[in-house]
């Protein structure tokens, strides 16, 4: 198939065929990453800007490595939040970068929908590297890629997503991706952290972690943000961890070959007990290296197929 999307803004917008196509493309990209000389000329002469309005180490580094392996010219632009508040609008910032020749803009922003604004107003291809509580397509795609690598087939898997679903862009993107590829998705967390009406997407909602884990093939743990406690969504990290923290004991309810994933960075002793964190370390490192392949695929597909000519 031809990948005709000019942008990758979210998994909600992609068809299951397109998602599979990105995953397949990432497989060839992974092969590039395993060579001695980890570089191909696919994006030679293409300027890619990483426009990160939120601090992010791993996603930005992963995109940058992916861009360099494709031989793109890379510009990292990290406006401090304060300079944005003081004056320049997002659109003006992005237009400036476009005027400098950027044809792909990778944007991370604390507000949901920011990449949509750029996609509507600019000529460049936009890749969403995480927008507010909305979507984080590269993370979900690398999660799907990792699951597919281990389990071969995603359709029919029971996948549990645990934690603050309301504020998680990782959760939303994974929900779309997993549902489109035929998995059974369960979300579990305190009711204050489950988005209204999410069951309309066909996910099953649980408030009890033990019952959600019953027979699970994959468990995706979300990072809990301490600010959420201050806004009154749960009483204490201690209590959160007692009811929604993953322990070896709890994991026994899942299938024996269950895969536990975490987008990182982990709060040890909160969402994962220390022992589970050690157990799953290899999968997490695998996720990180797959992330580069997925991002290479995303960059390659929007830059070559998406009407940039």
């Amino acid at each position, binding site marked *: 198939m031809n990948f005709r999307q000019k942008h990758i803004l979210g998994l*909600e917008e992609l068809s299951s065929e397109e998602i599979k196509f990105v995953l397949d493309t990432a497989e060839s990209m992974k092969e590039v990453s395993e060579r001695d000389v980890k570089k191909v000329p696919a994006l030679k002469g293409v300027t890619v800007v990483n426009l990160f309005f939120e601090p992010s180490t791993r996603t930005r580094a992963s995109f940058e490595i992916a861009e360099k392996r494709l031989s793109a010219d890379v510009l990292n632009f990290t406006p401090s939040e304060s300079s944005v508040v003081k004056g320049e*609008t997002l659109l003006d910032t992005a237009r400036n970068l476009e005027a400098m020749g950027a044809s792909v803009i990778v944007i991370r922003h604390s*507000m949901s*929908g920011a990449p949509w*604004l750029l996609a509507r107003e600019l000529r460049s291809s936009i890749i969403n590297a995480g*927008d507010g509580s909305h979507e984080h397509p590269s993370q979900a795609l690398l999660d799907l890629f990792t699951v597919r690598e281990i389990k071969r087939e995603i359709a029919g898997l029971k996948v549990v997503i645990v934690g603050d679903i*309301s504020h998680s862009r990782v959760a939303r993107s994974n929900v779309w991706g997993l549902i489109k590829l035929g998995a059974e998705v369960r979300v579990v967390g305190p009711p204050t952290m489950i*988005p*209204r*009406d999410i069951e309309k997407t066909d996910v099953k909602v649980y408030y009890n972690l033990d019952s959600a884990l019953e027979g699970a093939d994959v468990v995706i743990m979300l990072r809990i943000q301490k600010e959420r406690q201050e806004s009154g969504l749960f009483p204490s990290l201690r209590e959160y961890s007692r009811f929604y923290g993953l322990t070896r004991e709890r994991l026994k309810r899942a299938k024996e070959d269950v895969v536990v994933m975490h987008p990182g960075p982990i709060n040890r002793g909160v969402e994962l007990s220390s022992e589970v964190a050690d157990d799953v370390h290899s999968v997490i490192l695998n996720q990180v290296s797959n992330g580069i392949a997925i991002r290479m695929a995303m960059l390659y597909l929007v830059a070559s197929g998406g009407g940039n000519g």
Partner: protein
Amino acid sequence: MKILIKGGRIIDPSQGMDEVRDLFIEDGKIKGYPRDTEELERDSTIQIIPASGKIVSPGFIDMHVHLREPGFEHKETIRTGCAAAAAGGFTSVVCMPNTNPVNDNASVTEYILLKARTEGVVNVFPVGAITKGQKGETLAEIGEMWEAGCVAISDDGRPVMNSKVMRYAMEYARAFDIPVISHAEDINLSSGGVMNEGFTSSMLGLRGIPNASEEVIVARDITLAELTGVHLHIAHVSTAGAVRLIRDAKRRGANVTAEGTPHHFTLTDKAVLGYDTNVKVNPPVRAKEDMEAIREGLKDGTIDVIATDHAPHTEDEKKVEFDLAPFGISGLETALPLALQLVEDGVLTLPEVVRKLTSIPAQIIKSDRGTLKVGAVADVIVFDPNRTITVDREKFRSKGKNTPFHGWKLSGCVLYTIVDGKVVFSN
């Protein structure tokens, strides 16, 4: 100046009139409905407006607009806001106090009225703030603002959270027999929300404003109105629950009225998909059930008036991240065709629509306008309910081009707007 409007269907709910008649205006007043116009037509000093097949009605009264002046003249001025009103068929607008400075004392009220007299082509009726600086703490000088010309008090945009302050405001307002207009929103419940809370907000990852945010304050204010006996007017009703609460209160005989806006009876929160900031409005457009409940409320009289909540903003202010964009829709110039859609959909009859835009709002603000009775001030409009238009925000008289209806094909077009017997807009 003399005007003869010939052959139009005159709809004037204030006198139960719905018939084809000629209407004669002289010296700024409704002179009469002459049976024989031959002589008048020979008088070259009389402007003749042919209105056959058109509707002639009292000029509309918009109970809820933001004229932005003083303080936010880049968004709208009294001059541009009034011009937009005239283009939309409104001959009177009731303007909210959330200006800068806030209209919380007589000198600001006088400034607004002076500007309106010198620069505005329609009548402007200011609303005073309930509390000083709209801070929700101490009562503003309500009596002096009333003396200066305020027709109501309201906390629009910054709701009074302290129930005791609201109680005192309602009791105090009784001395001047003016309504208290409630922007019903519990700002703790809606804190940080930018759209309706529901499936769409969940999927867009935008913080939601639950229906309860409106309903708890509607319930509170009805309770306080019953305690104090004040006339409570609920602004921009957006939820099915609020409609129910108001309906129940009216059944009990409470002195409560309410308004519905074109965007709330036309749009649902699905319009936000794609992060269109022109749909960002407070209260937000809600679920289909809510939209239908508002239509039902308009039909059974629970919702008394149609008001626009005209809230102009600049394009730059709206072309930002959804979270950062200001709330508000520029509504004056799309209200008529959107209201006529209610007729098309069988919700209201044409005279009922006109009534909710003329005689009922006039009653609420105790104005002698909104009528075509002989001797009344000649605020009259002529419109063609059947002419198809395409909404083009670039043609708005308002500085606020922030409409979610740009490009919509609708029926209904204002042809003449007459204020105090003078044509101030024609198309």
